[in-house]
């Protein structure tokens, strides 16, 4: 039995070397957000509830409910699929540490929310129109 378990641990360790594909999504922010660029780690912190600030100002993440851009963003910057990602948020909600971020249908709804709410940060497909918001460069 123990040999099987050790084999499992070895196989799991091999996954460390998996290479990720680059995402075709952009991160957008309300014009009130001071930051113009964001590191992958800071972005992950904001979208996993570990942090509520960017560039010295408060931010509020907004999520896509589903879709390709959602999957790509989560895979590239969070390292989880949608189910695991939302399970992480539920852990925070059920332990009293956070409120679940708002989720909307489609890129247009993300742009609409981000453009009208101070501190809002979201993600959309590169190809989607995004007038009225700023694009954050990923360091």
């Amino acid at each position, binding site marked *: 039995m123990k040999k099987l378990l050790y084999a499992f641990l070895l196989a799991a360790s091999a*996954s460390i070397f998996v290479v990720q594909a680059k995402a075709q999504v952009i991160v957008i922010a309300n014009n009130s957000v001071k930051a113009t660029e964001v590191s992958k780690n800071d972005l992950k912190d904001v979208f996993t509830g570990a942090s509520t600030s960017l560039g010295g100002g408060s931010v509020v993440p907004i999520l896509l409910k589903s879709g390709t851009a959602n999957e790509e963003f989560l895979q590239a910057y969070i390292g989880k699929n949608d189910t695991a990602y939302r399970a992480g948020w539920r852990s925070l909600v059920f332990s009293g540490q956070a409120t679940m971020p708002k989720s909307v249908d489609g890129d247009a709804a993300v742009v609409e929310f981000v453009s009208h709410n101070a501190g809002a940060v979201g993600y959309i497909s590169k190809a989607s129109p995004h007038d009225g918001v700023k694009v954050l460069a990923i360091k």
Partner: protein
Amino acid sequence: MNRLLVGALAFALGAIPATAQSLEDLNIQIHGYATQGFLYTTNNNIFTTSSSHGSPAWSEAVVNVGAQPTPKLRVGVQARYFLLGNYGNTITLDWAAADYKVNDKFGIRFGKVKTPTGLFNEVQDIDPSYIWSLLPQGIYPITSRNSLLAHYGGVLYGTLDAKKLGKLEYRAWGGVRVLSEDDGYFLVQKESGSALPNGLTRINEGAAIHWKMPLPGLMIGASNDREMTSTSTLTQVIALPTTTINLTGTEKIDSLNKPNFFGRYEHNKFMVAGEHFRFPVIGAVQFGAPPASAFRVDQQAWFGMASYKVTEKLTAGAYDSQLVNRQSALGPGRYQKDWAISGRYDFNQYLYAKAEQHFVQGTALGYDTTLNPNGLQPNTKLTVLKMGVSF
């Protein structure tokens, strides 16, 4: 009554997932989850269930209501129905707290709040959040979970940016912890005729540090929960051939420290974690005139675990968990070793199923004598199946 409430809760959980959305106008959110477990053991009956015949006596349902009236202020409350064998079968308050977060560096939470000890204590009751059906029982015993989860008081928290050295998350807490009369810690005592009719109320304080290291995904940490000296009323029933004698006395437990040391590494689909925990108790019981009768417990427990996301929906994992009570007599009752393999399948973001196989040696945890009248076997295989829904 409780079964009616559970039925209503389960119906609500199943029927209204759509209402999980934020109620925008009031900035209120409603979330919940429910689980149903099944236990089967090859030898001993575990967790006060009739598991050697297969037992479905493991149900939970949780409803959470939260609001964020301002960006920095959150309030929330969470209620739970819990049934495991003879434990629970009642609705309790998990937590009810207000949280004011000034910024990432400082926030305060107060009310009935989760106690942030160890790697899992804050989330050990949140079944949808991890792969395991049972967390390592030496550190996170499910029969004492409701008592250990939270305390009445407050938590200070924050994250300090250590630049190239990573980030330091801190927690500091204080308040009062209440262990109810029927808590798992008192099971053996209770079966010998002793009872703490008012439970055990202890002042506690503690702190925790989680160091998120420069290597992404790597965290190491430590916590210590200190409980102050407490004295509780103790009753003892002595059955004699012709009569019974009821005695009333006191149980005193000295102040104690409960330290945890832990670490976790996550990368892509892979997670590995480990933890060590010590629980040293020195106490005394006294009926009538001195001398008091002293007792000691010195439990040390640790585990190593790993999980891997095999596909989008399937996660597999394994852990080795061990516990030893260094004050206990030699024999199977002194220790518990538990190898577990686990699988979780997420049908969608709401519904999941878990299966887990344990290979248990030793009898230090989870057993009662009433449901094991012929004594305990030193080894047991335990199979756990679980279904859960969350929104």
